[in-house]
């Protein structure tokens, strides 16, 4: 059921979410999250970033996160699109969209997928700052966010 893609190209949020509901009459709620490149991080201006990933494992990890969401909630459809390569502030990085009969499940599953994606999917960000490029370090708050979902 989940549609997972890793790509350099930008994505059209409207088109992706439309694909979750097109031709269906059982969807009552679609929740979505879009992550964007900010122009500042940790007190430094960000001119752009490069996203590296582990081809093969990335897709498997995203599919696995979606499978877990599907087993926890009653979902009708999911889409995850994550970009790689060179991005600039304002660019879209990631889209998570979830369709279900009711909003509670769509909201929860969308947040769960993002929290798990941030700690399990093998992506790495390298930011361009005025003082040079730096690898973004993982945040403890992301581990805490993912830990909330432990049963």
């Amino acid at each position, binding site marked *: 059921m989940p549609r997972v893609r890793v790509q350099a190209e930008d994505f059209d949020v409207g088109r992706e979410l439309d694909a979750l509901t097109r031709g269906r009459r059982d969807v009552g709620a679609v929740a979505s999250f879009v*992550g964007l490149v900010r122009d500042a991080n940790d007190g430094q201006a960000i001119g752009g970033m490069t*996203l*590296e*990933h*582990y081809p*093969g*494992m990335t897709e*498997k990890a995203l599919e696995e996160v979606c499978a877990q969401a599907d087993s926890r909630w009653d979902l009708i459809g999911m889409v995850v699109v*994550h970009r790689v390569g060179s991005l600039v502030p304002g660019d879209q*990085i*990631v889209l998570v969209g979830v369709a279900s009969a009711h909003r509670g499940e769509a909201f929860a599953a969308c947040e769960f997928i*993002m929290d798990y*994606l*941030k*700690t*399990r*999917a*093998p*992506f*790495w*960000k*390298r930011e361009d700052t005025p003082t040079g490029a730096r*690898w*973004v*370090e*993982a945040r403890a708050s992301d581990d805490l966010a993912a830990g909330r979902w432990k049963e």
Partner: protein
Amino acid sequence: MVTLLYFASLRESLGCSREQVSLPAGVPTVSLLIEALRGRGEKWAEALAAGKPWRVAVNQQMASLATPLKPGDEVALFPPVTGG
């Protein structure tokens, strides 16, 4: 032989993105492989030090030091992930 992949800051600090290595003798595990890599010199010992937050995947699944290895496995070493 196993295929070793390195990503992100680990790839940069080690100056290597991919290589083939022989499995250590005995009962090969991730732990034994890491020990062998640390023995290559200061750069390797430092990057793969026990206190450093590197992660390991075997055949594209997150793994641990105790994970057993067999010929043909794909082992990846990388820093904690930062996508999203």
